[in-house]
């Protein structure tokens, strides 16, 4: 009930601001931004695990919510904050079991209002929705680049070899918080947003970096 009043007030403010614009019925871009926010907040409601808190944007979400890319300075700040947020794996253990990784890559479930739990264990990694990964799977999306031969192309013969460290760490960072390397990346922040836990991330790492994985054949 309280929330409703707050949103109504926000909407009224946004409309009021429009009334002060130079031409009646011609709100400025900034006024339209405020009106759009008020509209979103009035239009959505909580459902299961998907509450309206999900409409509260952090800096990166806000900066990447327009047709055009954010100014370079803003993008750099988003990337720096994202890089600083990366949690590196316990004991420097980056790789798990690629077979488990393949199962996670196939699983597109999780985090919708019809899902019961938001715990990482209830989530898939969604990889095939957007990426080609193994050659065997023909039903893959193209929103992200192909990851087939990901490790092989990058010369990872032994992920434990210090010569592979840069690629291995970058890959972990990309999975943990993709915005560290591209402020407006389309890729979810799997570690940062709590979509996958460390163990699940290690399995996905193994899928794309383990030389024995079908990805690198």
């Amino acid at each position, binding site marked *: 009930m309280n929330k409703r009043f707050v949103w109504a007030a926000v909407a009224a403010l946004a409309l009021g601001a429009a009334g002060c614009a130079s031409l009646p019925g011609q709100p400025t871009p900034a006024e339209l931004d405020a009106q759009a926010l008020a509209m979103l907040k*009035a239009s959505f409601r909580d459902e299961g695990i998907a509450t309206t808190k999900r409409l509260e944007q952090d800096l990166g979400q806000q900066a990447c919510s327009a047709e055009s890319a954010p100014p370079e300075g803003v993008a750099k700040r988003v990337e720096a904050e994202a890089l600083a947020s990366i949690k590196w794996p316990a004991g420097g253990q980056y790789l798990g079991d690629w077979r488990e990784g393949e199962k996670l890559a196939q699983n597109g479930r999780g985090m919708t209002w019809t899902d019961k739990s*938001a715990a990482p264990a209830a989530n898939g990694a969604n990889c095939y929705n957007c990426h080609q990964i193994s050659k065997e799977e023909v039903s893959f999306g193209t929103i992200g680049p192909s990851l087939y031969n990901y490790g092989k192309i990058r010369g990872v013969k032994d992920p434990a070899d210090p010569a592979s460290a840069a690629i291995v760490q970058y890959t972990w960072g990309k999975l943990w918080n993709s915005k560290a390397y591209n402020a407006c990346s389309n890729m979810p922040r799997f570690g940062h947003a709590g979509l996958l836990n460390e163990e699940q991330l290690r399995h996905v790492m193994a899928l794309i970096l383990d030389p024995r994985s079908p990805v690198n054949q």
Partner: protein
Amino acid sequence: MKHWSWVAALALLPGLACAQKTAADSIAEYRALLADGNPAELFEAKGEDLWKAKRGPKNASLERCDLGQGAGVVKGAFVRLPRWFADTQRVQDLESRLLTCMSTLQGLDAEAIAKTPFGKGEQANMEALVAWISAESRGQRMQLPQVHAAEQRMYELGKRAFFFRGGPMDFSCASCHGEDGKRIRLQDLPNLTKNPGDGVGFAAWPAYRVSSGELWGMQRRLNDCYRQQRFPYPGYASEVTIALAVYMGVNAKGAESIAPAIKR
């Protein structure tokens, strides 16, 4: 006869797994075969009956409902919606306008209908109504008005909603529908920031869904997009859904409507 084409179409399905380049071809063939007998026709017939039937506390039909082209004019209305309505002082899409007519003409409870789950009760009737009304404009080209200041404002708000990133996966509508030639799994994604062409995107909904045997209006299509974006729940006929329809519909100007289409 139609049943046979269904069987043939289903027989094609296993072919989908053959190879990447033929998969898209197989899907296209499958769709072409299905289009020969679109079960949306059944919904259309029911919708026409519903439009003419005296119903609700006021025992009235919808035949005096004004969908923007004058009372009772159905042909051509669909390709000009959403638009501004002076009586409600709102920009309305087909479904929110039908709620208005069901309420004012028939005395039905619009708020209760908006809260009814998709496919149930009056929402099942809504599916039939949008099937028939959209079919009456089949083959016409999208021409949403952008004359009234409120229509122009809704386009701008819809654009902002389209690019709004949120939720645990940082998605916006543009994450999937902002570039040409993208796919999720094998599903082609129209680029809705511009005109994706005849019978694609906005010009293809409402549509009959083979996988679920249901007729989805644009409201339900958007609802499921938001579910997949991991957003909270968009209210039926809420402003954000109408604003998005204005944005997509205006972008689709000149595209031929094939609604109600058929989808896998």
